[in-house]
Structure formats: C-alpha cells, structure tokens
C-alpha cells in the first residue's frame, strides 16, 4: 500500500508540481524548438516520453547491476550518455520503419533527444533520489507526460501568438520565453499540492 502512495506522489509531482520544464528546467531546447505546431508538439512529447521511460529503466539497471557492482560509480555520466545515445538510435530506426510520417515531421529533433537534458537528467535524478527500478520507470514516464502536457499547451498558445501584435524585437524566442514564463507561474500554483 505504501508503495502505491509513493508512486502516486511521484506521479503527481512529476506531472504538475515539479514539472520538468517549468520547475526543473530540463529539456528546454526541444520545448522551444518543436512547439510551433500542435501536431509536431504531440509527436515530440510522445517521443520524449518513450525516451524517458526507456532511458530510466535501462540506466537504473546499468547503475545498479554493473556500475555499483564493479565500483565504477564515477563512470556514471559517460556510461549513461552512451546508453541513451544508442537507445535514441533504436527509437529512430523504429519510427523510420513503422511511422515514417512522424519520423519526417520530427526531423532533426529526433536525434536531438540524445542531447535532451531531460533524458540524462532523469537518469541522474533517479540515482540522486535513490529510486528503485519501478519508481525510476514511473518517474521517467510521468516526467515525460508532464513534458507532453507542457509542450502541447505551449504549442497551442504559440499558434495563436501569430495573430498577436508585439514589438518587432520581441519576435521569435523572446515572446515564446515570456509565454513560457507565464505558464511557469501558473504551474507554480501546483507546488502546494502535497496529498501524502
């Protein structure tokens, strides 16, 4: 029973209160880069969610069963990034084969999941928070869902921003950052959310 409550509080935290984008600042690059249209944003969000889930599962096993066992904890960063890079390669080949339209829509941002700080970040945070295997996977997947929520909301606001009237020098990234800032303010409201 305790286990279920822990998992629930991890879920709520990762999606709302400690959202990767708005409170931990992980994965900002794809968040700003692939959020001009809702469809691509959904695709990116799903790709990141699966990437995060797989990465936290694999890195959790790698950490416990090989790095710690052989006293190689200091190789953590190098080992994790290599594991993640090959995982992303697999996702890429899978998408290319089975969902070519999504593959072309994501374009350059798919290989960029490798350098998405959220993916390496979640692996490191799992270790830092001492999560076991199940908790790690739940944290990864729900963190990804939080990212999906954030990027879809953000993309739908940005689609409407096209019609807004703002000074020329604010065009592009500045206005997007202001939007993200206001959304972060809204998400801050969830930080008081502690059920358990």
């Amino acid at each position: 029973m305790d286990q279920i409550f822990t998992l629930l509080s991890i879920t709520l935290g990762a999606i709302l209160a400690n959202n990767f984008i708005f409170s931990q600042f992980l994965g900002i690059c794809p968040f700003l880069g692939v959020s001009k249209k809702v469809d691509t944003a959904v695709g990116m969000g799903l790709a990141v969610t699966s990437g995060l889930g797989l990465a936290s599962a694999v890195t959790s096993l790698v950490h416990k069963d090989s790095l710690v066992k052989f006293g190689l904890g200091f190789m953590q960063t190098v080992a994790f990034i290599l594991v993640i890079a090959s995982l992303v390669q697999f996702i890429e080949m899978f998408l290319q084969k089975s969902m070519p339209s999504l593959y072309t829509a994501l374009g350059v941002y798919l290989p960029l999941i490798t350098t998405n700080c959220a993916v390496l970040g979640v692996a490191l945070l799992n270790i830092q928070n001492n999560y076991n295997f199940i908790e790690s996977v739940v944290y990864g997947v729900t963190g990804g869902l939080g990212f999906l929520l954030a990027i879809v909301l953000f993309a739908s606001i940005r689609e409407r921003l096209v019609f807004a009237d703002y000074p020329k020098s604010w065009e592009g990234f500045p206005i997007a950052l202001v939007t993200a800032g206001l959304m972060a303010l809204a998400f801050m409201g969830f930080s008081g959310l502690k059920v358990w």
Partner: protein
Amino acid sequence: MNIGKQFKEGLLTQNPVLVQVLGMCSTLAITTSFFNGLGMGVAVTIILTLSNVIISAIRKIVPDKIRIAMFIVVIAGFVTMVDLLLQAFVPALSESLGVFIPLIVVNCIILGRAEAFSYKNGIVASFFDGIFQGIGYTLVLLAMCIIREFLGKGSFGGGLLNGGAGIQIFPADYGVGMLTLPVGGFLTLACLIALMQWALSKNKK
C-alpha cells in the same frame, strides 16, 4: 584565421545564448546567485575549450558516420573530470549546481560548436573559438545572475562576497521575489534576447 572576428562573434554577433539560443537549460536554472553563474560559466568554458581542441585534433581520423558518438564520449570524459574536481575542491559549488554539472554533457553549446566549428577548423582556431564562445556564455550567465539577484533579493555577489551572503543593497523584503523563482529565469532571458535582437537590428541599419 581572424582572432578579432572570432572574439566579436563569440561575445556579440554569434553569442551562444542570446543569438544561437543554445544551452538554455543551465542558463535558466542556475542563474540565481553570482557564484553559481561564475562557476558554471568557468566550468563550461574549460570543457568547451578542451573538447574543441581534442575534436579538432582527431577530426581527420574520425569517420563521418560516428562523429557525434565520438564527440559525446570526448565531452563526457572532460565533464566527468571537471565534476570530480569540483566535488573535491569546491564542494559548495558542486552541491548548489547539483545535477547541472553532469548535464554539461548535453549542453547544446558544446556539441553545437563541435559540429559547427571544430570539426571543420584547425586546432588553434578551435581553441580560440572555445574560449570566446565560453566567455560569451559566461557573460550572459553573469548578467542574468546580477539582474535576478539584485531585483529579486536586493543583493549582489551572492555565494562569493561577504562570506557567502552577498552585499545587501536594499532589504530583501522589497525585492521582486518572483525573479528568483523559475518564472524569473524565463522573463529575464526573454528581456535579454529581445534587447540583443533590438541592438542587432539597429546595427544593421
């Protein structure tokens, strides 16, 4: 090779954060006190310079297809070294930057410069590119830190001056507390990029 031009590009016209919009995560996350910004900036500059030099040195023997993997291994090696050194000699900084030190591996500035510059240019040019891009990044971090710390908490040089508390310029109660929260990071960076775009467009005319 033109060092003066590289200097100007790194600091202004091709500034990694304000113009190329790379490395946003760390820029937004750790710029809450002066010491954090300085430490992060110096760490990234060192790693960027070293990895630029090494990648430029091995660029002729690395096959094109696996170059990204090679870049990442080189960068991860240097990041691990810096991470361990910081843990050993500056534990306070290592603690307050936390997960963002190992995350330098995936800082797009370093991979971006490897791909866009040092894979195509000589060792000396890559060395200076690393230093100048690193300084450009550090300056933006410091600007963000100073703005957020001053307006948010009314202090200057937190973590470094006055035994870590920083010099209090006006009482913290009068500060805009929001600026020290994540929201403040987004808004401050938005203002800085807008300012940069304005300055660049004015320069062109």
